[in-house]
Structures are given as C-alpha cells and as structure tokens.
C-alpha cells in the first residue's frame, strides 16, 4: 500500500473515531438519547469505532517507530508486526462485542 493511501486512511479513521466516539458518549450519558443504544446501529458504530481506533493507533505507532528506527528492513518488520497485533486485537474486540450484544 502506498504511503499516501495509508495516511489518507489515518485521517479518515481519525474523523470516524470522533463521530463514533461521540455517539458512544452521548448514548451513554444523555438520558433523552439512550434509545440509540437499543438500535442495531449502536453495536455497528462500536465495531467501526474499534476498527478505526486500532488502525489509527497502530499506524500512529508505526510512524513513530519508522522514524526512530530508519531502514528498509526495519520498516517492513515494524509494519508487519503492528498489522498482526492490530488484527489480533480486532478479532478479540469483535468477539467481545458480539458476545456483549448476544449476537454470538
């Protein structure tokens, strides 16, 4: 994947974290908007939030590490390791989410 594509997804996920994070906070703290939690969109927004947070954080970490340890081979090792960590966290997070909403 090109660096520009990675960074565009980074910015898009940043925006998604803002939107889905706001949905999560509002539906849990404003009594008048608690009905959001009853809809099918709420667990879906949490799923998007999970994916966005993981991509954004792992890519942020990659950028920091790539700068601290420059080199073509170290870049590949860092990217692959963080990708695997991200996928593991996403699968486990998704599993907990499905169990929580009794979809599993």
């Amino acid at each position, binding site marked *: 994947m*090109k*660096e*520009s*594509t990675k960074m565009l997804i980074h910015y898009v996920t940043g925006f998604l974290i803002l939107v889905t994070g706001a949905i999560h906070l509002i539906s849990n703290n404003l009594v008048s908007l608690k009905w959001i939690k009853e809809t099918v969109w709420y667990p879906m927004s949490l799923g998007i939030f999970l994916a966005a947070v993981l991509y954004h954080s792992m890519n942020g970490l990659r950028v920091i590490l*790539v*700068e601290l340890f*420059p080199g073509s081979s170290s870049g590949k090792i860092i990217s692959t390791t963080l990708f695997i960590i991200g996928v593991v966290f996403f699968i486990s997070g998704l599993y907990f989410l499905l169990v929580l909403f009794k979809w599993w």
Partner: protein
Amino acid sequence: MSELRKVQFKVFRFNPSIDTSPKWKIYEVEVDRGSTVLDALLKIKEEQDPSLAVRYSCRQAICGSCGMMINGKQRLACFTRVLELNTRVVVVEPLNNYPIVRDLITDFSDLFNKEKMVKPYIIRDDTLEMLNPTGMYLQKPEELLEYLQFADCIECGLCSSACPTYSTDSLFLTPMILNKAFRFSADSRDMGLHHRLPIIDSEHGCWRCHFAVACSSVCPKGIDPAKSIQLLKRMIASASIFKLVKKKETQLVSRHHAVESVV
C-alpha cells in the same frame, strides 16, 4: 567611520581525523556596525588562528555555503551582523543534523544524494523536442506564481538542519529536498510527478513531516518549505489516491517567433 566594539566569539573546534572530542575556543574580535559573523571568523583566521576551518564563497547570501549555528539558531554567517545579535558572547557551532567535516564545516553529501533521487529538473514526455529544441515553452504569470517563491532556494541546508524529523530519521527526505520536488512538480512545463512519486510518496517521504515549521523560521530567503510540503501532500493525494491529475498543456513557441515578439 563607525565605532569599533570588542565581541567574544566562542567557536566550536573539532577535527575528526585528530581530535577525540570537540572543544570550544574563545576569541576576541573588534567589530563595527557592518561586520558580519563571517567577517569576524575570517578576521580570527587571518589574525589569531589560521587553523580555523570555515566554508564560504559569495559573502552575499547567494551561494548558501556559510550556514552555521549562531547563538543556537541556523543562520548564514555572511547574512548575520554581529552587533544585531545583541550579545556579549557569540556562540558559533556547525549546523545540526549533518556530519562534521572539520570545525564549522558540515558534510552535505546525504542531502545532495537525496536531491538527485527526486529529479530536480523539468521532465517532459516530448523527448525529441528535449534533444533537439526548436523553441521555448510559454508560461503564464499565474503559472509562474504557483512555484516562484519556492524557486528561490539557495540550498544552504539551514531548513534541513532545523528539521526535528531529520534529527531522528536520517532517511527523511528533508524540507530542502521536498521543497525542490514541489518546485518542479508545480511547474506548468513539468510532466515528471509520476517519476518522483516512488520517492516522495514513500515511508520516509513527505508524509513524515510533522509540520513543526522550524524549516520556514530559519530560511534566509524567506521561503516557506513547510507550506511547499503541505502543498506537495495535496498534490500527491490528488494524483495518487483520487487520480485527479490536471493535464498540463504548454504552448511551444518557435525560436524565430519568440525573438520577433521580444523585438
């Protein structure tokens, strides 16, 4: 004649082939209102210590050879008046982020190697016209304004020395090189963006810029490399992700016609 004043110079001294560690030497120099730091350093070299190594050429902020850290900031020695610094002691060191050749001289080879990689010249598809030119390409004033500010770069390397990313990531292309890449990619006559993309849109390319703007604050020519990097990001995003490449159409005017219109 303006009044002479004595100023102390604390100069960094290091010869990697002899010395095991750097040391500081203090010199006292008489300067007047118009004396630059380079004048003072050359006076030290002529009158007190001929072993002091300084690189310079034009003495008028055009060649970009005499960049150094003066009182902790990247400046051109020939473009900095001693008395305007307003300090009793002037601290002079080699530029940050570069290997030291000797004393105040730093090695720019890494920078120039990276510059070659971004192809800092106009690239065109019409090879025949390039090999056997029959005329010249017209450029509208508004097209010139797209890159004019960024074309003033004298390659003094002060921006790259001030760059916080380059201080940790030695493979980062640096503001000077990215500015150069933007200057040519934004030129209405150039068709070479796709040749430069593999380098500037890489892991250590323009996306590593944190927008600290340290580069723009030290540029002696008033260029804004931080801005050119952001514009380069926009250009890459349009071309590489959204495939929105503005087709450049440049009018070729024959030499005969061009000479006639000038006359």
